[in-house]
């Protein structure tokens, strides 16, 4: 494409160009400043801080945890997906919902519930008189992160399994494969893209997480960035860059693994119905497994938190605190939910309708903010706001809102894209032929038809923001406490009962939104 026609395209698609620019500047500028800051610091001293054994240890721990969680989430997520998609079991719908709901409980809340429950003076010991394991260190982090992130693999793999064309497996069977062989050779390869995108989400979560590892006292890169962000910001900037580089490597690796594969498993031909597989003697263990996962990931933490809320005088203690925080959380989440489609619709629209490299670029753009570890992103923004931007911006609500929106734009992509695929392109062409410009087409034709997708996108962004911790922690205006920051500050001080009402409010709001989205998805 020549430079001139590229420019013409950029101008013609100006809403997308503008949104893309906002994204690029919003995410790129802070990162560049972070790099500048890291490079500009007192060289020799910083060098000796960064290039030492401890940094290797932090990186090693991060990688260890990442691989560990990937293995355990796969061991939990894939069987869970298969059982709810393909096995002949009662209550598959219920188990599906039970597998999704852990998404309503952010990792730091799960960790804090487990910490309060276990130990020989924990809630369990005092209530029932027996000691429960008090998770900590690597195993503790592994346990909590697995329960929190396995739904990403479960959901991706499950929906891919439902889309599989059973004809393929039938053909494999007809060629003499065993049932397992047919599944392994005909079905599994097609599940690979779905598995990989789930796995990418899991590893991004793991390397970005600082709440769980801090509470479990397992020192990873994020943990160090969090600690250092308050003591030596230049050093923190270096570690944050390292973390960002790690996440970039993972993204590239993921793209490599996906290359050459169909991005979607073959569509269901509709000729053959998927047959469910009888479980026979595996039935009891399967039920046990399907019950155990939500028991640890859902029932245990929620009961623990409920006990705190009702047994102690925590409600009285934290009464006004959690109500005010709920207001702040809703305000932030609603703001991000309203802003996200404004950026998202032009971008996704251009990427779905466009062709070639430009379209692919636009398609990837929303993931920029998502892939950068949130602590690194937050730190970069604080730097920029403190040293470059006008003072009103520093610690302002607007800055926090912008950061959260940029980060969670990716959550809006899925629903917007699938909604756009359902808007006939011909309608838009007709409008254009009748003299509408880019913006007018978007506003008068596409958006009204997109409405369902936009609302779903908003709900996803809202949900993500309600649970968000690191960005809010770093960027929130003075006195602006959200439910998440309240949970965090109380948990860090081991004031579990005071954290409980805030945690319950997050789970409540997130659970409601998840339930609504699930009900919509099941339709």
């Amino acid at each position: 494409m020549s430079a001139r026609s590229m420019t013409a395209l950029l101008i013609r698609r100006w809403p997308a160009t503008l949104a893309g620019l906002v994204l690029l500047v919003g995410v790129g500028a802070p990162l560049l400043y972070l790099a500048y800051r890291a490079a500009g610091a007192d060289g020799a001293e910083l060098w000796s801080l960064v290039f030492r054994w401890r940094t290797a240890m932090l990186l090693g721990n991060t990688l260890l945890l990442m691989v560990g969680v990937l293995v355990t989430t796969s061991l939990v997520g894939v069987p869970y997906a298969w059982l709810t998609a393909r096995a002949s079991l009662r209550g598959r719908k219920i188990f599906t919902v039970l597998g999704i709901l852990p998404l309503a409980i952010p990792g730091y809340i799960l960790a804090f519930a487990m910490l309060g429950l276990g130990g020989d003076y924990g809630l369990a010991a005092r209530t029932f008189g027996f000691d429960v394991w008090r998770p900590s260190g690597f195993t503790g982090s592994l346990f909590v992160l697995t329960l929190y992130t396995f739904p990403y693999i479960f959901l991706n793999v499950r929906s891919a399994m439902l889309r599989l064309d059973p004809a393929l497996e039938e053909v494999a069977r007809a060629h003499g494969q065993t049932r397992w062989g047919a599944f392994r050779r005909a079905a599994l390869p097609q599940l690979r893209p779905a598995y990989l995108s789930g796995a990418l989400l899991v590893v991004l979560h793991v390397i970005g997480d600082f709440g769980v590892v801090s509470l479990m006292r397992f020192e990873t890169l994020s943990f160090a960035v969090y600690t250092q962000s308050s003591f030596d910001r230049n050093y923190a900037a270096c570690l944050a860059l390292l973390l960002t580089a790690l996440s970039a490597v993972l993204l590239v690796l993921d793209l490599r693994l996906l290359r050459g594969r169909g991005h979607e498993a073959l569509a269901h031909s509709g000729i053959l119905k998927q047959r469910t597989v009888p479980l026979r003697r595996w039935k009891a263990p399967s039920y046990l497994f399907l019950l155990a996962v939500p028991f640890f990931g859902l029932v245990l933490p929620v009961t623990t938190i409920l006990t705190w809320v009702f047994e102690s005088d925590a409600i009285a203690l934290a009464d006004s605190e959690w109500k005010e925080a709920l207001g702040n959380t809703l305000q932030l989440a609603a703001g991000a939910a309203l802003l996200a489609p404004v950026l998202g619709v032009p971008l996704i629209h251009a990427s779905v309708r466009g062709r070639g490299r430009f379209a692919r670029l636009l398609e990837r753009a929303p993931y920029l903010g998502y892939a950068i570890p949130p602590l690194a992103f937050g730190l970069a923004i604080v730097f920029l706001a403190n040293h470059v931007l006008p003072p009103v911006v520093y610690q302002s609500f607007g800055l926090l809102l912008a950061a959260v929106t940029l980060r969670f734009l990716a959550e809006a992509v899925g629903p917007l894209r699938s909604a756009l695929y359902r808007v006939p392109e011909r309608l838009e062409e007709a409008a254009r032929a009748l003299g509408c410009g880019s913006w007018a087409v978007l506003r008068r034709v596409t958006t009204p038809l997109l409405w369902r997708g936009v609302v779903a996108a908003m709900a996803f962004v809202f949900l993500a923001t309600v649970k968000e911790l690191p960005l809010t922690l770093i960027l929130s205006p003075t006195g602006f406490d959200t439910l998440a920051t309240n949970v965090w500050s109380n948990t860090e001080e081991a004031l579990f009962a005071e954290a409980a009402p805030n945690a319950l409010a997050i789970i409540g709001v997130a659970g409601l939104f998840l339930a609504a989205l699930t009900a919509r998805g099941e339709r």
Partner: protein
Amino acid sequence: MDRSYRRLLGVLIICFGATAVCAEEITIYSGRSKSLVKALVKQMEKETGLTVKVRYGKSAAMAMTLREEGDRSPADVFWSQDAGALSALSNAGLLTKLPDDIVDSTPATLHPEKRDWVATSGRARVLAYSTKRVQEKDLPKSVFDLTDPKWKGRVGWAPANASFQAFVTGMRALHGDAKTRQWLVAMKANGAKTYPKNTPIIRALANGEIDLGLPNHYYLLRFKKSDSKFPVAQTSFAKGDPGNMLNVAGAAVLASSKKKAAAQKVIRFLLSAKAQQYFTSDTFEYPVSGDVIANPALVDVEVLLEKAAPVPFRKLGDLIGTLKMLRDVGLL
């Protein structure tokens, strides 16, 4: 558009639109935790008539943030949980001199040289232990004994905590950098467990994760107040041990503040009888000014003073040096 969707959109817009109204505001950066002081801040708003916004964090971290922010800092008052963070800011010239009547309302031994911050309450470092797993007679006499193999993996500390950092600064002043560094390294090698703050140390003692801990004195007392059977107790090391550091929480007005008069009002309130009584009765600290009814749960201040490590507060200013040491040995 579906009606339900329109409703959802409406809800989102209402959520977003519900913003607070502005008023005469003062901004405090507080290194003291929210759970300890939020009730007092409410009283402060009532007494001073100001709208008080508080940013909570760790004291040393806040000091570093203030250094980073410099002239552009939105903070008016810095309220620290230890003298070290305040001294560091004073050394950096970021604080402004306080009126004499404020400084002189506290004992002269607590006055900083430049008179640019003031103590607001007193606290002591202690040795906390599990009453289930440690006998009183087996307790170590000195903080240096904690590197003994018999305590391997049984001690908890909080290197990111400002009071701990002040204790390290004190140890450096008393015993020199070489010995302090040696101790930190030996402790780490002996499996000392790192916690983010003091309260989790107390919790971990009760839960059997650790058997000894190095917190400030008032955290345990708060647990004991609501649960007398709580299986943790605390004591001091032998007389003059660096583990028995005394410290103060204190407050200062930032040089960059544009509301210095209002900021001083805040500090006057912290030294008022009402606030001092709050520190004594509610957060189990020692008062530094005025007539206050003593808290029976507290060890007598004379006993503390006699056992205390002989480090004057003026020697606690080298926070940067301590942070560097903690980083070098891999604790931060």
